[in-house]
């Protein structure tokens, strides 16, 4: 029983990290219908930013997790830069396929650029401890503070983001653009600025995800974002892409599937099960768990 609960907690923690990344995917996909393959690599960018800023923060006598502020700023800049330099020119003249291929190219570019930078290099870097050790123990099951924090932050970010898109002016503009770009332009919305903002928010979230990931696995390497990003994308599709609560739900499902497969079946089969779940869901309900099927106009 205690194994079960422990697995559940690990799954929730992992799921919250996936959910944070999936939120970024879902926002970008919702607004420009593009799988931003480079999103996983924004996590890597955030991770390295923290690796380099944690010593500075500690030297200033502040807690290590504050370095996430730098990470959010750098990630948001990289995200906006990617949109401005690569995605926007291609979107103007290309098709959906060329945009997707550009996204793959950007992902490769970021990963390998990081390797080519001498200060980063291909070897993994180990992060110092971010959150203080210890935790709460209930009925023989220990929950680290980092775990509690990850789950709480994940849920809080989702709620805030949902409220942001529903209540604020900018959030409403985002929903408008994702529904109909031309109509949004006619209503006086600056479409390009809205898209850039979406990239900034989505990439900023991946920096928070990087913090939570590093709290659990204190190792940063250049290709860390590939599989993490893929699984988060699976989570976003699973919950229904473009839907914010769907990303959270999908993330938790993927995290739970992964942790339960690891502890009850085999750790090397975990990825297979994650992708199997995706395939089953896509075949049964292509729009995702919370998505609505939309017919095609001829």
């Amino acid at each position, binding site marked *: 029983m205690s194994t079960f609960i422990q697995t559940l907690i690990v799954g929730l923690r992992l799921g919250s990290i996936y959910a944070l990344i999936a939120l970024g995917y879902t926002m970008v996909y919702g607004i420009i219908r593009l799988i931003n393959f480079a999103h996983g690599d924004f996590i890597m960018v955030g991770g390295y930013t923290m690796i380099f800023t944690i010593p500075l923060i500690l030297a200033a006598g502040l807690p290590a997790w504050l370095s996430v502020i730098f990470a959010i700023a750098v990630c948001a800049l990289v995200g906006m830069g990617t949109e401005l330099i690569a995605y926007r020119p291609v979107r103007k003249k290309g098709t959906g396929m060329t945009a997707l291929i550009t996204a793959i190219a950007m992902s490769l570019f970021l990963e390998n650029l990081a390797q080519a930078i001498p200060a980063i290099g291909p070897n993994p870097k180990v992060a110092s401890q971010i959150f203080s050790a210890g935790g709460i123990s209930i009925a023989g099951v220990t929950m680290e503070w980092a775990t509690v924090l990850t789950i709480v932050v994940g849920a809080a970010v989702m709620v805030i983001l949902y409220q942001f898109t529903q209540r604020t002016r900018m959030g409403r503009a985002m929903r408008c653009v994702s529904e109909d770009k031309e109509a949004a332009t006619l209503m006086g919305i600056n479409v390009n600025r809205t898209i850039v903002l979406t990239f900034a928010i989505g990439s900023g979230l991946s920096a928070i995800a990087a913090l939570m990931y590093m709290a659990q696995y204190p190792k940063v390497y250049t290709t860390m974002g590939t599989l993490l990003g893929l699984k988060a994308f699976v989570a976003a599709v699973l919950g229904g892409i473009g839907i914010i609560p769907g990303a959270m739900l999908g993330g938790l499902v993927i995290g739970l599937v992964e942790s339960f497969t690891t502890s009850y079946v085999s750790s*090397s089969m975990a990825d297979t099960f994650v992708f199997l779940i995706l395939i089953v869901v896509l075949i049964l309900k292509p729009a995702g768990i919370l998505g609505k099927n939309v017919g095609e106009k001829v």
Partner: protein
Amino acid sequence: MKRSTTAKGYLLNTAVLAVAFIAFLALQNVMGKSGGFKLILAPCLWQCCYLIILAASLNLVLGFLGQLSLGHCGFMAIGAYTAALLSLACERAGLYDDKSSPVFILILFGCILLAGFLAALVGLLVGIPALRLKGDYLAIITLGFGMIIINIINNLPFCGQDGLADGSASASLYKNGLGFGTSSKVTFLWFALLVTLICLTIMFMFIRSKYGRAIKAIRDDEIAASASGINTSFYKVFTFAYSAFFAGVAGALYACANATLSTSSFAFANGGILNSTFVVVMVVLGGMGSLTGSAAAAVIMFLVNYQIKNGTWVALLPAAVQSVFAYPMLVYAVILIIVIMFRPKGIFGTYEFSLINLSRDIKLHHTRKARERAERKGGETHA
């Protein structure tokens, strides 16, 4: 009239290819003993052969059917493992002793065919559920299937996490099975070239057939195609399996050209030249919808890769450029972004290189250029 041009085209191609092939074999006989040919050219040609087949096969799905598949190397892995294991089994059963016997050549052909068929079968199984989806969803589901295939091969007891490199299998693959050393690569070079030619010919014939026209119609407008009586799901799944067949053949050639097999070489993205992303790069670079373009792009990308790693001129470049060249994937990524930005159709676009139409195409090109120039001039006077 049309029919006779086509027949003439086939005749011309066959004649030119036959002459080129014989000339090449003669050249090989003269130069085959010397170091440069044996150590550099022959292994390079082997690599080019399987890259060409791989790129052309993905082009069937990506360029002609218009569906992005990101798990193409999964099928290649199936082909490679099938061929390698089958040849090892044949050797252990005592069907052949050395690689010069005619039985070995038969077994080689058998291995390659079976590798293709098994990959096609898996392609069929993957394609039936996957092709119900479109666009991005299809891309992500094929990516998922590619990962699952690799994961399953990793977990098979007779393949193992480290592939056939595990234990003694590697050495025996190299010596007794398909894995060719440098001298056998020279001896069997005709085989790789022949397989590549046959595969390309069959793919060309497919594109020109009723099937090819049907899938191009699906690419251009799926709804209109189905309204015109084309069974879209049949043609999609069929093309997917057909393309997987050739990916399997490419995998078998890969197994021949390499001493060891490991699933990490077939992953979605890795540092090497061979992964599903890289195949997409080749197809996009060559032109989605041009088989000759894919073949050209495969050779170009191979040369870029080879020159970056081995070219003597690299040492003459400034240190900053050299340090970038230490990460070939970075160079590919930049090439891909530049191509997509400035020539989204790729080098060839949908143009197919053909010998019989060469003079006509050149003439057309010139008249078009002249017309464009005239129009520009006309536009200026109007303005």
